[in-house]
């Protein structure tokens, strides 16, 4: 198990390196410098700025410096926020995004598995079909359509929940962003759970448990839930990536000062180092979380562990 974990960790390094190289090259292939502005600066000042941000050195040199900074957790200075480094910005904005994402993930897992199991136990009933059509709709509709419509309905018209982030306090302001982030994932997880639960409920060990006189509730809880969770678990990787992308949109819509908002602002302001830093950070996060999901797979399913 430990050996497997170490091998997977080593395997993740080339992937990460590929992202860093790609991202770095893209930023540096950009036409025009980061400090090009309406106002033309004297050449001496331009040279000074280039020297201060080490833009006057050859590209491989810059790349090596970036990597060595990265290993020390230093993502370089921001081009727009003059007093802050990229690491500062990520450090201050990420906890909020993490909180949002974790809450959405938890909600998606709980409700998704619940609804999926519920539908599987009533397979092909009217309720099951209605739920699955709803889930299909939930999958097809993107977060940036869903979230504003929810805001319009629940905040602007019904005044049940706060519409924005600033000017409000308390837990209520979390509800709409978290629900908008979680809904598409709830739909995905519900469909996956339903399909695999139906498979598991048809298997021999469930029949044996039935023959022993166990009730449906006990069978699902003690025997069926764990094997039925395996496809859901393998969907966790894509789900994490989807919630990360979704959080960019949700933070923009609700005006939440998280990492996603920094990312969009940075992209629109051409704050190259900030955008590069956040891409590298997100990539590391996604790869790391995928790794954890892979290892969890072995924990839940002993058949995989033995191999």
């Amino acid at each position, binding site marked *: 198990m430990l050996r497997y974990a170490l091998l997977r960790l080593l395997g993740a390094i080339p992937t990460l390196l590929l992202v860093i190289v790609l991202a770095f090259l893209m930023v540096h292939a950009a036409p025009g410098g980061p400090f090009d502005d309406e106002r033309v600066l004297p050449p001496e000042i331009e040279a000074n700025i280039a020297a201060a941000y080490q833009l006057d050195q050859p590209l491989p040199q810059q790349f090596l410096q970036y990597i060595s900074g990265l290993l020390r957790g230093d993502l370089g200075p921001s081009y727009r926020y003059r007093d802050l480094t990229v690491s500062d910005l990520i450090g201050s904005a990420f906890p909020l995004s993490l909180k949002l994402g974790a809450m959405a993930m938890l909600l998606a897992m709980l409700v998704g598995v619940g609804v999926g199991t519920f539908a599987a136990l009533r397979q092909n009933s009217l309720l099951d079909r209605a739920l699955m059509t709803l889930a299909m709709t939930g999958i097809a509709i993107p977060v940036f359509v869903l979230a*504003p419509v929810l805001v*319009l309905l629940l905040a602007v018209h019904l005044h049940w929940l706060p519409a924005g982030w600033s000017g409000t306090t308390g837990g209520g302001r979390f509800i709409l962003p978290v629900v908008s982030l979680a809904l598409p994932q709830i739909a995905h997880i519900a469909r996956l759970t339903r399909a695999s639960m139906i498979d598991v409920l048809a298997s021999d060990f469930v029949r044996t448990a039935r023959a022993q006189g166990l009730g449906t509730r006990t069978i699902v809880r003690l025997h069926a839930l764990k094997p039925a969770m395996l496809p859901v678990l393998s969907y966790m990787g894509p789900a994490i990536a989807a919630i990360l992308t979704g959080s960019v949109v949700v933070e923009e819509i609700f005006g939440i000062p998280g990492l996603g908002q920094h990312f969009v602002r940075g*992209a629109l302001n051409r704050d190259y180092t900030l*955008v590069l830093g956040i891409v590298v950070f*997100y990539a590391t996060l996604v790869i790391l979380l995928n790794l954890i999901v892979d290892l969890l797979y072995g924990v839940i399913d002993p058949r995989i562990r033995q191999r």
Partner: protein
Amino acid sequence: MNALGRFWSRARQSRAVLFCGGLLVGLVVVAMLGPFLSPHNYLQTDFNNILSAPSLTDGHPFGTDDLGRDLFVRTLLGVQVTILVALVASAVSLVIGVFYGAVAGLTGGRVDAIMMRFVDTLYALPFIFLVILLMVAFERNFFLIFVAIGAVNWLDMARIVRGQTLSLREREFVQAAQLSGVSFVRIILRHIAPNLVGVVIVYLTLTIPQAILVESFLSFLGLGIQEPQTSLGALVDAGVNHMEGASWMLLIPAALLALILLCFNFLGDALRDVFDARQSR
């Protein structure tokens, strides 16, 4: 084309395919012809009619936006742009995916293993962020949107085509072609590709909505289609900024985008059922 004909004769047996397909075709036709029926165009601003609500009497059936532009024409333009971007981007992913997958599957052995390992590696990347980076670096170039989205979406296609090619490779007609010295590229084009039409179209109906999603995501963030051009994502973005006073600016493009995505998803699902792609994957 013979392969296409066979595809159609099987696909039209499904009512869901006919319904969703018909709806999409109808929507495209309306989006192409609709602007000619309106007295307005997508650029023309009317400062006497700013943010006016949808009404059939004043010639603005979808209302106007904050610059007094007619939203009927702009929404239909948005549908056109969204569908166009999705089709071209999917074509890019189709060409890359089919060639990559066919070459890997037909060559086999170590080359195949390395090529597929590369695809696995790319799967692990958070692509949308790299696309955003690309858009930032290259100034939101219209052409680049196609390439960027296509380059993201070819992975699934490559995997599926490779799987199909692996089984086609064992068939007599491919082996006969190989034995009689037909060139590698010609085998792919003449013998492999025509047999992939069914599977490829099924997966195309699933990559098109993905491309729509990426395009509207970028446009929503202000990184995709730029003013005065528009797309459904850009219209939703504008709608969000005015939703308290002018909810039609949000609801109409949002509903259309949802409808298009839903249609493609149902179409893809129905086609997959018809061809039982799971079995042949």
